[in-house]
């Protein structure tokens, strides 16, 4: 039952990714034939929704562009309402390799609540642009400092969550550039977050949604959010 992907949902956030989303969906269905593949179409103005449907995905169309965080949370709400036991995040731009999903799922079976596919753990196949690399290293250091647990690739959006995390993310999920914050949030709420090595691809098409100036803005925004997240009590921690 585990290899087929039964009870598992693959969540694919996509904003104007018509060139790549179809391939991501097909590869995900190939990797996990029993899994549901849901594309979170974040207000795209191109043919992302059509391409995803043609490739056989269920599509949740957001009426406006809400940003990756809110789009992701929509996926977790979908997964929570339909009772999936695990959810896997795979970006619609093709940089994540669906055949690597079992690596993440294995980490869940071994007891992790959230498994994060890391670009840098023992298989350094990923070459990122300089600014992006700087962001990765910086947030890795900040999250490591704030959680007391070693993290290398906190910006990776290639993740798998178990049922408890699905329910938690459905209620609490950071906005905008959510990946580092989501790790901090889970650690502070007592969940087990584990990094596992995964292969990544260079972006297959489209354009990164982050320009240099916005990148700088997000670095400050996420840094502030991480510090504030440490200072406030994690939501829902009492249960």
């Amino acid at each position: 039952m585990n290899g087929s992907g039964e009870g598992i949902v693959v969540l694919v956030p996509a904003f104007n990714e018509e060139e790549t989303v179809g391939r991501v969906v097909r590869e995900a269905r190939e990797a996990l034939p029993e899994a549901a593949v849901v594309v979170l179409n974040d207000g795209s103005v191109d043919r992302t929704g059509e391409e995803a449907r043609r490739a056989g995905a269920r599509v949740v169309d957001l009426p406006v562009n809400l940003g990756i965080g809110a789009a992701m949370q929509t996926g977790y709400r979908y997964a929570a309402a339909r009772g999936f036991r695990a959810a896997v995040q795979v970006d619609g731009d093709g940089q994540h390799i669906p055949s690597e999903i079992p690596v993440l799922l294995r980490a869940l079976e071994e007891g992790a609540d959230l498994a994060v596919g890391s670009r840098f753990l023992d298989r350094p196949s990923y070459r990122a642009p300089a600014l992006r690399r700087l962001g990765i290293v910086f947030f890795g250091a900040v999250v490591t400092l704030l959680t007391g647990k070693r993290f290398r690739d906190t910006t990776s959006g290639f993740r798998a969550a178990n049922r408890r995390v699905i329910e938690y993310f459905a209620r609490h999920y950071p906005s905008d550039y959510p990946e580092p914050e989501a790790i901090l949030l889970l650690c502070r709420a007592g969940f087990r977050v584990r990094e596992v090595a995964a292969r990544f691809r260079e972006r297959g098409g489209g354009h990164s949604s982050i320009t240099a100036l916005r990148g700088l803005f997000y670095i400050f925004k996420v840094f502030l959010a991480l510090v504030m997240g440490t200072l406030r009590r994690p939501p829902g921690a009492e249960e």
Partner: protein
Amino acid sequence: MFSQVQTVSVLGSLALLLVILEFVRKGRLAEEFSLLWILTAGVLLVLSLWRGVLDLLAAAVGIFYPPSALFLVGFGFVLLLILHFSTIVSRLSRENRQLAQALALLRAEFEEAKERK
């Protein structure tokens, strides 16, 4: 006797107060958002009319020209108002996000239900 600067500031804050109240009456400004505005205009009006308080205030913080203290108070209230609006905008954008999510999920559910038929 009213000095020139006092006349201007009295008329100015009175006009502000009247505009605010007129907006509330017409329903262009909701009552709950008007309170801070009314307080701002009211305080400016009182300080303009009642020089004694303004002089005391100016002396207390070391301002030599008392009407400047009026600017200081006004500026403080403007900052407060903007901060207030920022909290409202934050809340609205959070609620807007939740509405968009709910709409998208409902549409997906509707689509699924139609296919099942």
